[in-house]
């Protein structure tokens, strides 16, 4: 099948009418709306439709789906792969049902529109690798395939194991661009993935500080010119110098035990806190909600991916986002992406607790 791109007009029209088409996104499809007049076709490059339609499933299927996508688009150049019209076409046609399955559309209409913009369309440069349901599969594989010494499936397994470390690597373009350094980081991720996984799971205590140091390394060193051996050596040096947060990763369950009553005015400070401008009641409400609602439903979520992990709880309490818009402003993309998909649905409820609290 020839590769096809939306015409600009068709893409613009779809983008402008997300709200109008919400029911199609949720329950229907675009088969009757997207016609031959909506697309440019390029006979020079074809898509293997068999591979394409075999893409399905959720987060656990990302690695397989990446490999299928790359096979399906054999011959696609990075230049063409940077055309948002291609990926938006796929998410509205052959990969429409996959996209909806992988990124279930929120019930709230405003949230849904924003959600669709990122996962069905491409609104910014980072959406290619990160958000668009189709392009992220191709681009992540493409980036891994640049490293010829590492099996692509292994590399993808480590990259997709947790979203936050993946962002830490791919969003730091200096690291991702420097092929040898990227390979050395990938090796480290794979070792962790196949070992104790701490480097990948402890995002605030271990992974982010490490990657910040890697970034800082680029300050005075020409990362691009480092050989693979030199890159490995530099990472070992960072391993030795990074001051890991070796405080025990206390759970909120433990934390609630030491919370003082609201009237006492005593604050249970977190290690990173300098000044807490909060009262106890909001914090208690959030912890209670976490304990009674979230943890009872999802007892096995990784502590580092909890919507109300220590770090997230602190930030919710400190910044007090009252709605989804403020939540997006307060939390970095990496923070948001690192939340377990199961627990991410609680964001709206948490914001409502904050809003109700502030309205008292």
């Amino acid at each position, binding site marked *: 099948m020839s590769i096809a791109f939306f015409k600009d007009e068709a893409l613009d029209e779809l983008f402008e009418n997300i709200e109008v088409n919400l029911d199609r996104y949720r329950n229907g499809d675009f088969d009757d709306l997207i016609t031959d007049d909506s697309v440019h076709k390029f006979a020079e490059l074809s898509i293997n439709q068999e591979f394409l339609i075999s893409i399905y499933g959720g987060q656990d299927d990302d690695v397989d789906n990446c490999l299928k996508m790359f096979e399906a688009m054999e011959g696609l150049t*990075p230049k063409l*792969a*940077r055309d948002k019209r291609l990926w938006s076409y796929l998410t509205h046609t052959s990969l429409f049902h996959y996209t909806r399955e992988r990124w279930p559309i929120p019930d709230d209409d405003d949230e849904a529109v924003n959600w669709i913009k990122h996962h069905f369309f491409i609104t910014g440069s980072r959406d290619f690798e990160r958000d668009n349901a189709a392009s992220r599969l191709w681009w992540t594989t493409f980036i891994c395939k640049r490293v010829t010494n590492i099996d692509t499936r292994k590399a993808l397994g480590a990259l997709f194991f947790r979203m936050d470390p993946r962002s830490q690597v791919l969003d730091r373009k200096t690291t*991702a661009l420097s092929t040898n350094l990227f390979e050395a980081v990938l090796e480290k991720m794979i070792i962790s993935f196949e070992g104790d996984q701490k480097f990948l799971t402890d995002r605030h205590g271990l992974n982010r500080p490490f990657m910040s140091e890697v970034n800082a390394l680029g300050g005075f*060193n*020409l990362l*691009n010119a480092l050989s693979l051996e030199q890159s490995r050596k530099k990472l070992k040096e960072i391993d030795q110098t990074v001051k890991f947060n070796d405080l025990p990763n206390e759970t909120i369950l433990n934390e609630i035990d030491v919370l003082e009553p609201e009237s006492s005015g005593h604050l249970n400070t977190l290690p990173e806190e300098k000044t807490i401008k909060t009262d106890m009641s909001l914090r208690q409400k959030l912890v209670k909600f976490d304990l009674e609602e979230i943890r009872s439903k999802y007892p096995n979520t990784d502590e580092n991916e909890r919507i109300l992990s220590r770090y997230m709880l602190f930030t919710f309490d400190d910044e007090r986002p009252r709605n989804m818009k403020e939540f997006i402003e307060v939390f970095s993309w990496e923070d948001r992406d690192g939340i377990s998909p199961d627990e991410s649905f609680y964001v709206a409820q948490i914001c409502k607790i904050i809003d109700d609290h502030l309205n008292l």
Partner: protein
Amino acid sequence: MRINTQKSFPYPVIRETHDDYMDEEFFLWSTNESNRKPKFELSEDSSIAKFELNYSLSSTAIKRQIANGNAVYLSVFSCKETFFHKVFESSSESNNFVEINLDEISGKIELESYVYIKNDLTIESKNINKEYFSDTFSERKFDYHEGNIIAQAQVFKFNCVPDIFNFSSSLFRLVQDDDLKDGEWHVDTDQDKIIIKAAKNIIKIEQNLTNQKDGESVLANSIYFSAVMHAVILYLDEPELVNVYHWAKVFEQRMAIKNVRDDEDAYKIASILMDWPLSELHHLSGEST
């Protein structure tokens, strides 16, 4: 490393914005042109960009180290959009050529150039800023280590967009305007794209022509040629438009690639930018070329 003009290095570096070295400079230059900007040419089919790199370094002490193999001229080509990254090393000041396949590029190619230390060395130069030394009478020597950079040139960004005047691409957009009477059309350049608003009958003609062999050539020579010429006039009148509209940036870049002088007449510039579109009508003339 991302070049940051405000960055302080723990050692002296020759660079335009700092006086770590007094009266020393490092820059790239182009043959045939007097400006300090590397040149690139596109292959005939516009698929390859060929860069010519000529390095100019004033410091003889550092040049000596390059000759001895302890340092090299090093250029890094990168494209953030596509994760493209190519490192070029040379000990030669001139006649350095690098080819880049444009299928690997989207948007801009960034070029950073340095003198890069390969082996630990000491540079002794009276031009090292005395502020680096606590004692006025001490020798002006500095130790550099493998991986350090000792000179850094200006960063260049290149737009290599060879097929921008393909009218199915996103620079131009033809839209129907129901307020216009049959035959009327006008060009709107107050946006990133060049929007051609046309009456319904023009849109129909355009659709029919698009589906016919040579139809696009007719369109290129009529409505699109006029639109390009109009935009050229605006760009020549107000070059600052490159800071405002994407289309103006594309025009600027395309004129640079095509080596078009801006004192040419607008119709001629439009013809060059569009690769002499009248020639595309040869099939309609019944003659083969």
